[in-house]
């Protein structure tokens, strides 16, 4: 009897234990996910994903673009504990009218944005008020604003990035991988009131670079200022100006006007250069040894130069005979055509390619154009002759300025650089650009002789307005008719330009200035040459280049 009672008691005692075991089994087997999630939420918080981004600096270390952490403020209506106080606080700290917030409140469902890109000062005030008044239902989310302290200066090169810190165009896109770093979602332990408990594995080493450009903001401003003035006063559709250090290949300034984010004319705009290309023709002629600056180009008594049946080249101011130097001074198409033909298509093509035409620079700018240089074996006599004075060949500003720099520095084609230095988050330099020669294009004697010819162009030729008091200038004007969509050329639509370097003997700057479709005047000597002079004067002054 006693044994039976003990058994009953034991069974009764086991029932709750069994019930607990069964309940535990049920919770573990069937409701595991639900409780695991609840526990996860109670113990852990997830830090938001992030993408940090380095800065773009100018050659002197001035910030051209950097990411500022801003915040967006939104309201989650169903979590709001004190509507009047929430509206009042948002209105006071963010400088918005109460009526406006109320209006959005009524119009929205549960969620609406009150403000975006809230600056740190406002954010600090708002966060403080929320904490002090224990307000609920206001959600502050970090985002980024890419700031440009110098406004639209060099924005065509820099390009754009979005609020998620992702590069969209220009250098921002080209160097996106080096500039930005994704920080993954991180799990952090929560303390009371939702505060995060910091642990060592929450620390993320920044692996981003700050990129310093060769662009000097001060020079860029002056170049842009002159460009803007000349585009507007000449009624041009657009324009570009580039400044390069001929000795290092570093690009000091590269401006486009009007400015469009990430769309840089110096890299992307291709055009037929016209007479500025005669310097390349002359360089090829002189370097081949077939011509000297004093070689006479004789056209007999003809004022036209018949290249092929049905195609003759004429000059506006024709001379029956002229030297190579005079040909450049008066910018004779007949003379340039004759040099190209006497040189022959193959040799001429060799020099054109050696100067870097028809190939992209090493910069790799987004959308950089290659230009068009057809293979010499497809050239007939007419195409060879027209190439001599810059028609039938298209190029970019970057290619032409690098070619002029080669003439300026004694004959070396230099690698064009736009990036000067890359620095990691610890301040250590991981890349420094060094001047690099691609190849020798001209013999030093040729470069010196051609510099003399280009000086004559400025002193007594078509480019007198490019002169700078106290300095010798070497350069060449260009006026080219634009190609028509229907084929051929448009007589009323021009590209005017000037390419040159200063001081001629010991050059500090190579400068290219181009206006696309100016209304008036249509000659490079009248519009582009004075712009060159103004840019050169300003740069020589701010860089302290000694007068000769």
């Amino acid at each position, binding site marked *: 009897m006693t044994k039976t009672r003990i058994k009953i008691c034991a069974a009764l005692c086991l029932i709750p234990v069994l019930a607990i075991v069964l309940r535990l089994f049920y919770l573990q087997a069937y409701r595991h996910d639900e409780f695991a999630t609840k526990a996860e939420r109670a113990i852990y918080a997830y830090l938001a994903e992030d993408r940090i981004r380095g800065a773009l600096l100018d050659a002197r270390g001035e910030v051209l673009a950097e990411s500022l952490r801003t915040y967006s403020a939104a309201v989650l209506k169903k979590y709001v504990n004190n509507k009047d106080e929430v509206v009042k606080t948002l209105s006071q700290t963010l400088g918005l009218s109460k009526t406006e917030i109320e209006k959005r409140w009524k119009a929205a469902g549960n969620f609406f944005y009150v403000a975006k890109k809230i600056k*740190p000062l406002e*954010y600090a005030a708002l966060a403080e008020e929320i904490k002090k008044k224990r307000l609920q239902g206001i959600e502050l989310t970090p985002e980024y604003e890419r700031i440009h*302290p110098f406004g639209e200066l060099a924005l065509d090169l820099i390009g754009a990035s979005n609020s998620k810190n992702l590069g969209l165009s220009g250098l921002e896109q080209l160097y996106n991988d080096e500039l930005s770093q994704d920080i993954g979602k991180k799990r952090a332990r929560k303390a009371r009131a939702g505060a995060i408990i910091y642990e060592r594995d929450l620390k993320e080493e920044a692996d981003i670079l700050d990129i310093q450009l060769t662009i000097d903001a001060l020079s860029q*401003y002056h170049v842009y200022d002159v460009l803007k003035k000349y585009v507007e006063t000449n009624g041009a559709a657009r324009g570009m100006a580039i400044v390069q250090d001929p000795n290092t290949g570093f690009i000091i300034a590269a401006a486009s006007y009007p400015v469009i984010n990430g769309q840089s004319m110096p890299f992307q705009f291709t055009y037929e250069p016209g007479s500025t290309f005669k310097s390349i023709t002359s360089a090829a002629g002189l370097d081949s040894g077939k011509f000297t600056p004093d070689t006479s180009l004789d056209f007999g008594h003809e004022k036209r130069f018949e290249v092929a049946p049905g195609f003759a080249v004429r000059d506006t101011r024709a001379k029956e005979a002229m030297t190579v130097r005079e040909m450049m001074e008066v910018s004779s198409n007949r003379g340039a055509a004759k040099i190209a033909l006497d040189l022959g298509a193959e040799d001429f093509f060799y020099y054109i390619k050696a100067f870097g035409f028809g190939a992209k620079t090493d910069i790799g700018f987004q959308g950089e154009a290659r230009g068009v240089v057809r293979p010499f074996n497809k050239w007939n006599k007419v195409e060879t002759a027209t190439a001599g004075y810059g028609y039938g060949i298209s190029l970019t500003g970057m290619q032409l300025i690098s070619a002029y720099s080669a003439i300026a520095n004694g004959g070396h084609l230099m690698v064009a650089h736009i990036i000067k230095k890359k620095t990691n988050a610890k301040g250590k330099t991981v890349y420094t650009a060094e001047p690099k020669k691609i190849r020798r294009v001209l013999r030093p004697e040729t470069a010196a002789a051609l510099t003399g010819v280009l000086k004559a162009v400025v002193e007594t030729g078509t480019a007198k307005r490019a002169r*700078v*008091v106290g300095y010798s200038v070497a350069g060449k004007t260009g006026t080219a008719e634009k190609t028509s969509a229907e084929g051929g050329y448009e007589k009323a639509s021009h590209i005017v330009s000037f390419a040159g370097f200063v001081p001629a003997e010991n050059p500090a700057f190579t400068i290219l200035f181009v206006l696309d479709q100016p209304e008036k005047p249509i000659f490079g000597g009248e519009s582009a040459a004075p712009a060159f002079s103004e840019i050169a004067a300003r740069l020589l002054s701010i860089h302290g280049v000694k007068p000769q």
Partner: protein
Amino acid sequence: MKMFKWLFIAGIFFLLLAVERVELKKSGVRVSALKQEVSLKEARNQYLRYQISQNSAPERVYKAAEEQLNMRLTPPAEVIVLDD
């Protein structure tokens, strides 16, 4: 008696361990709050630097110099360069 002594020592040990764990978490919360504060202050500094940079932008400086102070850029030939 000996067993009570060991139990006492173990009790003290676990108490210290618990106190240490609590303090560690408190420090973690403080570090986290400080990091947030530092991050906010950095952003504020960055914004102030941005405003300074905006004010020293070449365009702004040149306009102010020309319009308010009637200054002009010196022609390069008139610049005297002092050697180092």
